[in-house]
């Protein structure tokens, strides 16, 4: 079933015990369809990264379940590849070796050595990083590091690609450039993507649905807005598009008015 691909059911998360106990997420339920691009937006500290970590399996939910293709998620795995906010490349490995490490681990049984080499190169090509594959992360720019992070995640052939504010630390031009490429890759490969962001334009431009989270503590889903814009999308053409403007207005309104209102309710 299409709607049953990634399923988040009544997920709650509390940290600490007793006096220091704090409720971060309250009763999050969400269905993500195969091939869907989902953005999760909210103010910083609202727990959206915690939600992503729970889906990734890096953090355990206090209660509730995450299912991927009907199987419950208990631990991290390459079927839910994460692109980390700060890229998290291993500085002692070259760009190629960073991606190859993932390829070797995930396809050790199913691909020959030559095929794994080809697959590594193919993913570096997708993110246009072939030219720097012999360099180490310390020798390339922030935008390029994030490309390698994306290449590494894509190379795992994940069922779901988890992006944790992937462009947050980049300048506006680099960010726009990478957004274009992520759109192209999504169009080409049809990945299922869950992206955490705090950038309204990024959310509207990239995603099929935008999940708006209320402010913490005890954040929950405030609203979900479906962005009914045809793909491929063009940043410049969309500026005056009524659907784009409406989606943008709705998210902005939520973030600036309702996120507090819902919390008080």
């Amino acid at each position, binding site marked *: 079933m299409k709607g049953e691909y990634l399923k988040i059911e009544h997920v709650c998360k509390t940290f600490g015990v007793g006096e220091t106990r704090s409720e971060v997420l309250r009763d999050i339920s969400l269905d993500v369809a195969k091939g869907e691009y989902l953005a999760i937006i909210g103010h910083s500290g609202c727990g959206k990264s915690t939600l992503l970590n729970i889906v*990734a399996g890096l953090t355990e939910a206090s209660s509730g379940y995450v299912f991927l293709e009907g199987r419950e998620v208990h631990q*991290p795995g390459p079927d839910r590849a994460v692109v*980390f906010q700060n890229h998290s490349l291993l500085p*002692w490995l070259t760009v190629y070796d960073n991606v190859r490490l993932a390829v070797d*681990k995930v396809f050790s049984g199913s691909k020959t050595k030559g095929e794994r080499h080809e697959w590594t190169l193919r993913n570096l090509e997708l993110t246009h990083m072939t030219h720097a594959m012999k360099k180490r992360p310390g020798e390339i720019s922030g935008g390029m590091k994030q490309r390698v992070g994306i290449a590494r995640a894509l190379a795992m052939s994940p069922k779901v690609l988890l992006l944790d504010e992937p462009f947050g630390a980049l300048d506006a031009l680099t960010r726009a450039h990478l957004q274009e490429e992520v759109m192209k890759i999504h169009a080409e490969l049809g990945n299922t993507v869950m992206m955490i962001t705090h950038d309204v334009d990024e959310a509207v431009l990239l995603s099929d649905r935008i999940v708006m989270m209320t402010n913490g503590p005890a954040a929950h889903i405030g609203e979900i807005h479906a962005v009914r814009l045809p793909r491929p999308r063009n940043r410049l053409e969309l500026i005056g598009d009524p659907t784009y403007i409406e989606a943008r207005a709705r998210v902005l309104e939520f973030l600036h008015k309702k996120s507090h209102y819902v919390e008080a309710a």
Partner: protein
Amino acid sequence: MLQGKAAHVAGVVLPPLLMIGLLGVVWQVLCSSPGASLPPPSKVLADTHELITQPFYDNGGNDKGLFWHLLASLKRVALGYSLAATFGIALGVLIGSSKWAMRALDPLFQVLRTIPPLAWLPLSLAAFRDGQPSAIFVIFITAIWPIIINTAVGIRNIPQDYRNVARVLRLNGAEFFTTIMLPAAAPYIFTGLRIGIGLSWLAIVAAEMLIGGVGIGFFIWDAWNSSLISDIILALVYVGVIGFLLDRLIAVSGKLVGRGTVSV
């Protein structure tokens, strides 16, 4: 271009050479009076001319050239230090990655590491009943503490990001150890190894003075007993230079192994 390079080299090489020359002159002046207790550099060179030019002679027993004494000391250090590095890194990894191992062992280590190296010598002589293994044990016990402690700190400081990458990739224990743990902790491990080699070299000279046999420490003690002060000064120069070279050796290998992550 070439001129600029020559100027750069001269700028690096000349100041220490001038300083050494200056100190030599001061030493010469201070020790030239008839009643001076220590020889001036000119006398040291004259006295030790034979030792400097013939480092390889061997008249049997302990009457050997300086090369053989230094080699004997270096062999002991190499053995004791290799053992310390092996066990030190292994124990460091253990207490760095296990909370319980740390709680159990750390207080013990904190006490043991403050014991001066030579204080171990009588005990090890009693245990091994022989000078050679005792000296090696003293090197081992001297060098191991900074290696353990720095390795443990390095392992504890591995960023959570790298651990997350390993978890997403489902690296198993051995893969995590070789691809993430060792390279991430390499800068710390090599700091420990550098402190360790320095301490080993400090300890061996002292230990050899007590255990005798061939070795630079014994050579110095023997020279003192024969009132050959110039020989002592020459030996000290050799000890200093070799200590420096050992330190550089570890630093350079750290640079190679750390593949760019170790800054020296």
